[in-house]
């Protein structure tokens, strides 16, 4: 529980205070200059990233360091990797991610619901869930390799283990938030079965559940890359190790860029649902 809290907190509280001083009051019509400032302010992160990439390009072109290639070279390397077919192993990685995360999501939701319903089950499973949440799961990968071999199974299991526990814990935490007064009132007005779920349970629990799913997908992706770098046979992780061993810095950055884009993309998709839902609220 505490682990889940602290894991969710950083992203949770952030939007509330963000930019509070520069939010203009609705009644005051901002002047043209103020509007430009506000726009610039909103665009700052993007400006910052563009500047950063520009700096990388300049430093890369000046050849100041062998580990900083120009950004344009990294981008062209991605296309070269696609053309030469070296990224084909990526589909295998994505498959492992899909299956593993699918299992983590469905079982995580089921276990979250079951532990909310049964106190005994909750009490029995709690030490395992807490333990798995906080221990370095990557240390288990060599053992899983012994049990499941070097193939896809190990990767699916790792992806599952990375994602499952956060989802289960957050589902449980979300369901626990249902206000007894609220529940009582809904029942008094005759809400039962599906209506009760739709009007009380789901609206209350969904924000935290979505947070769990978002953390789950980012952890699952980490599991995918970690297992592949440790097994180092196929997939994106093996590419990372291969490029690292051969000092192919541009290739390395190309793969890292792909991984970062994938990570940001997957988490922001869920973040969009989360924002929409939390804003609409109860």
């Amino acid at each position: 529980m505490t682990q889940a809290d602290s894991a969710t907190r950083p992203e949770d509280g952030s939007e509330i205070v963000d930019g509070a001083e520069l939010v203009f009051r609705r009644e005051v019509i901002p002047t043209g200059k103020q509007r430009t400032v506000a726009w610039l302010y909103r665009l700052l992160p993007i400006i910052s990233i563009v500047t950063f990439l520009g700096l990388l390009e300049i430093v890369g072109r000046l050849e100041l360091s062998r580990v900083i290639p120009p950004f344009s070279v990294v981008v062209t390397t991605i296309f070269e990797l696609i053309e030469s077919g070296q990224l084909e192993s990526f589909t295998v990685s994505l498959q492992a991610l899909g299956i593993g995360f699918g299992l983590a999501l469905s079982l995580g939701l089921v276990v979250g619901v079951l532990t909310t319903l049964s106190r005994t089950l909750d009490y029995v499973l709690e030490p395992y869930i807490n333990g798995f949440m906080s221990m370095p799961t990557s240390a288990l990968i060599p053992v899983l390799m012994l049990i499941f071999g070097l193939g896809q199974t190990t990767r699916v299991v790792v992806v599952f283990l990375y994602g499952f526990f956060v989802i289960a814990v957050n589902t449980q935490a979300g369901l626990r938030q249902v206000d007894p007064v609220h529940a009582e009132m809904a029942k008094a007005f005759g809400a039962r079965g599906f209506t009760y779920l739709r009007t009380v349970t789901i609206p209350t629990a969904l924000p935290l559940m979505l947070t769990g799913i978002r953390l789950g997908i980012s952890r699952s992706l980490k599991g995918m890359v970690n297992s592949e770098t440790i097994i180092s046979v196929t997939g994106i992780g093996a590419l990372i190790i291969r490029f690292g061993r051969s000092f192919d810095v541009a290739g390395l950055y190309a793969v890292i860029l792909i991984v970062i884009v994938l990570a940001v993309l997957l988490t922001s998709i869920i973040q969009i649902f989360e924002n929409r839902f939390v804003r609409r609220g109860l």
Partner: protein
Amino acid sequence: MTSLVETQRLEKRSENRKLRTYRYASFIVALGIWEVGGRLTSELLIPSVTQTLGAIWEMTLNGDMISALLVSNQSLVFGVILSLVIGVPAGILLGRSQILDRIFGVYVDILVVTPMVSIIPIVIIVLGLNLSARVMIVFLFAVVTVVANVRTGARSVPPGLVEMARAFGTKSWDLWTKILIPGMLPALGAALRLSLSRGVVGMVIVELTLVSVGLGGLVLNARALFQADTVFAGTVVILVEGLLLIRFGRFLERRLAPAGLHGGAA
């Protein structure tokens, strides 16, 4: 005459006892399954509990385990301390300055979701296969979480308290020592704990991928030689160390948290 309250209390106590029995029973069943499974399958794949414990004992006696632990934890200690020394001020800056957060916060957001393993090779190309590379990787794993947590903590100091202190003309030194820092203490505690748990992850991963020394190296070598009991033994030691460190982190967190500020409606 037993009162109703007392009967309820007794009932509750017996229920708790029942739950505790289930918990221990599940633990024993899990160990039993492992033991039986280990004995049924090949020793080269899954050693039993007793074999694993035997291997741990043996390696403790011949000193392999101790030296591996020492090597691994060197990087952990330096990396975690470094991540706190740099991560805490950075987090406070981002949390208290909105303009800095708009400029640099986006990198924290991206790095929090990025699998850090992917940058291990770059660190190694720059620093080589040595202690400084391992320290750097532990640092990188831990620092992002530290910054993200401290940033949230610094933001969530009750604005009402800050406002009040300003209204009473508090000097900025007093504002920091009396309001802001105490208000951040819970988040600092969480950052401390998370830096330990992320640091262990970094320590293990770097040893399992490119710099095979310490506990990770022990496990990898044993795997190559099909010494399954050593693989299991090393893994168990790593996991136990991780769990103990988090326990320690929780303990420190609890010591820090009550000292924090309470209340203060916005």
